[in-house]
């Protein structure tokens, strides 16, 4: 049979399958994907640029706004980096508050993702259900922090609000709600015939590819890589409790690394988060939640700090990584954010190849991409957007070093 002609389909920068702007270009033969390319950088907002002109206490609030979902992960990673440089000792109770909020964030993020995934499959009933269930976590977060989205609870040196004893019953009530819902969610998502039909053996990422492409978070765990920053390099209060990476074999017999396994991992992480919050609340120590209540002193300490540090946090989507360098000045000398999608996005090329057009939305969504977290640079000159190659970047950095040496 003569080879069929291929044609081109653009998906994006704005498309119903994508929740954030990014451009995919597909070479399609019939309904099958023969070639994939993608161009991020469509939603760059210059947050790092803004941060380089502000002091660390102010940057913490910018961090809240890097991502619309992970309101705490970025701030936590940044604060951890600054706290290491300035040698600020965070009170133990603040670690617990940070971890509990981070776990509620994981619950709401994974349920949000589950809803989006159902919608991408054309299963709107499940989408509405997942988002309704998610509201419980959102309500608790709002009850505890005062905000639904940009929580503004984490700050350099601790947290801005403490949990009071009368708030505990509400937290327990939310945990019980989720414990009661687990069975239902598992039945609806994992035992549904159409979901199995669409997600099993679709968008497969082998363990080796997952490792070689440096994927992180649920995407890596769904392929069988047992990595989780909470377990590998415990931060906040995670060192005090038992955290193990969730792999798809908690539910299925074998690890395939397909879209279905990514659903399994995320759903069971919700279950595990509920357990973790219970453990944290049982062990929660008393005491202050802030290293220093006077902002002036925090600022002065940060201003005197010198050195560099990395803050790593297991965000719902995977490892969130902040590099900060301070040099005895009010503003950081360098601040680099690497969101989890940055590590995961290259796996798209692998997992989309050979699949059908119908699977594009769910496969793209399966790594839970967050483009506004990821887009760190965007080069636009004379109204045209260019792509920087490795050589270009090397050339630019050599130029910069020369400039600094002069």
């Amino acid at each position, binding site marked *: 049979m003569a080879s069929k002609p291929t044609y081109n389909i653009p998906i994006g920068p704005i498309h119903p399958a994508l929740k954030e702007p990014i451009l995919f270009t597909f070479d399609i033969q019939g309904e099958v994907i023969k070639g994939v390319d993608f161009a991020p950088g469509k939603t760059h907002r210059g947050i790092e640029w803004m941060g380089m002109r502000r002091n660390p206490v102010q940057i913490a609030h910018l961090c809240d706004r890097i991502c619309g979902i992970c309101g705490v992960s970025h701030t936590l990673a940044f604060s951890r980096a600054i706290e290491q440089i300035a040698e600020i000792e965070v009170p133990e109770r603040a670690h617990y508050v940070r971890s509990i909020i981070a776990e509620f964030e994981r619950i709401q993020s994974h349920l949000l993702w589950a809803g989006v995934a159902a919608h991408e499959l*054309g299963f709107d009933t499940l989408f509405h259900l997942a988002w309704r269930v998610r509201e419980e976590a959102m309500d608790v977060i709002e009850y505890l922090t005062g905000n639904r989205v940009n929580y503004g609870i984490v700050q350099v040196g601790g947290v801005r609000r403490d949990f009071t004893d009368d708030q505990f019953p509400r937290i327990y009530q939310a945990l019980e709600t989720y414990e009661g819902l687990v069975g239902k969610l598992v039945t609806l998502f994992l035992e549904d015939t159409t979901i199995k*039909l669409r997600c099993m053996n679709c968008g497969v990422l082998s363990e080796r590819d997952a490792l070689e492409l440096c994927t992180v978070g649920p995407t890596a765990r769904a392929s069988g890589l047992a990595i989780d920053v909470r377990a590998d390099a415990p931060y906040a209060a995670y060192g005090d409790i038992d955290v193990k990476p969730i792999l798809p074999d908690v539910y299925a017999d074998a690890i395939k690394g397909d879209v279905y396994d990514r659903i399994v991992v995320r759903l069971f992480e919700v279950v595990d988060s509920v357990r973790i919050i219970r453990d944290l609340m049982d062990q929660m120590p008393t005491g202050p939640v802030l290293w220093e209540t006077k902002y002036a002193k925090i600022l002065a300490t940060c201003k005197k700090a010198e050195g560099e540090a990395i803050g790593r946090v297991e965000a719902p989507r995977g490892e969130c990584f902040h590099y900060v360098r301070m040099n005895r000045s009010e503003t950081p000398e360098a601040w680099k954010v690497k969101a989890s999608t940055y590590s995961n996005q290259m796996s798209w090329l692998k997992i989309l190849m050979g699949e*059908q057009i119908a699977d594009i939305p769910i496969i793209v969504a399966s790594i839970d991409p967050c483009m506004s977290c990821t887009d760190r640079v965007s080069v636009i000159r004379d109204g045209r957007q260019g792509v920087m190659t490795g050589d270009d970047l090397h050339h630019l950095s050599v130029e910069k070093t020369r400039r600094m040496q002069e």
Partner: protein
Amino acid sequence: MIGMITAAVVGCIGITVYGLLFGLVLQGVDRKCAARMQARYGPPLHQPFIDIAKLLCKDNIIPKNAVTSVFNAAPVIALAASITILLYLPIGSIAPVLGGWGDIILVLYLLTVPGLAMVAGGLASGSPYATVGSQREMVTMIAYELPLAIAIIAIAWRLNAAGVVDPFSLATIAQTPVWSVVGIPGIIGMLLLMVAMAWVTPAELSRVPCDTPEAETELCGGILVEYSGKNLALFTLSGAVKTVAMATLAVVLFLPWNLTWFVPLTGAAGIIADLVFFVVKVLLVVFFSVSLIRVGMARFRINHLVTFYWGYITLIGFAGLLLLVLDAVLGMGVVA
């Protein structure tokens, strides 16, 4: 002769108005039911009317590389064909307006016309999404036509075997419920055919799980992606009228009973009672084979859709057909 033509013209206008209004009401009911099943409040019942009014106020945007004539003709043809189907279908105890000029085979062919018009419009709109959508629509049509044809032929054949005169005429099918001429195997066969028909309906109407040609999240609306304003309104109306046509066809084939057969009502009262009863039956059909299926499922991939209709639904249809044949051969029920 002139009287006949006048009656036909008046009937056609009446049916057109009825089809458009009832179609939009059905869409409203479907949206409300689906919303309630998804734990949402849902739009008001008259939302489809608001949508159509809005679309009619808007300009048509014709893409630069579209084939303008085909692009503009497609929605008109689709709506005209959908309304034409209604002219051959009985409504309650009201006989079809053009019943004397066409039978169920014509209806079977007419049902494909709106789909073909959409394919032509999609291919003419010069968008890769619409092209993929059109290809999928063609594949979908190939997939569901066979089970639909099996159901219709099986019923007409069984009526023929029972010695009914003119078994392909819709008036005859509506007057003689097949259920009354079949024996036990025939009843099982009819139930199987009913299942097949219930699954063909969402495919025929391009609703979830068979909205693959439109696939909002994949193709941003597929076939209809380039349509806007009045043209889109015409396609929406065509879809609404087609919903009435498909539900009416299902009612005629499987639930043809009229209230007046059991309750002695005559004249206008009888017609109105039958009409109300008919509306209830149509609502039931739409609820079960459109609303209920679409809230309970994810979208099929195109290859799943073909496997599902050619494999399972066609097999169910054939089983039904065989049981009806067996029924007649064994001489159970009424045989001429």
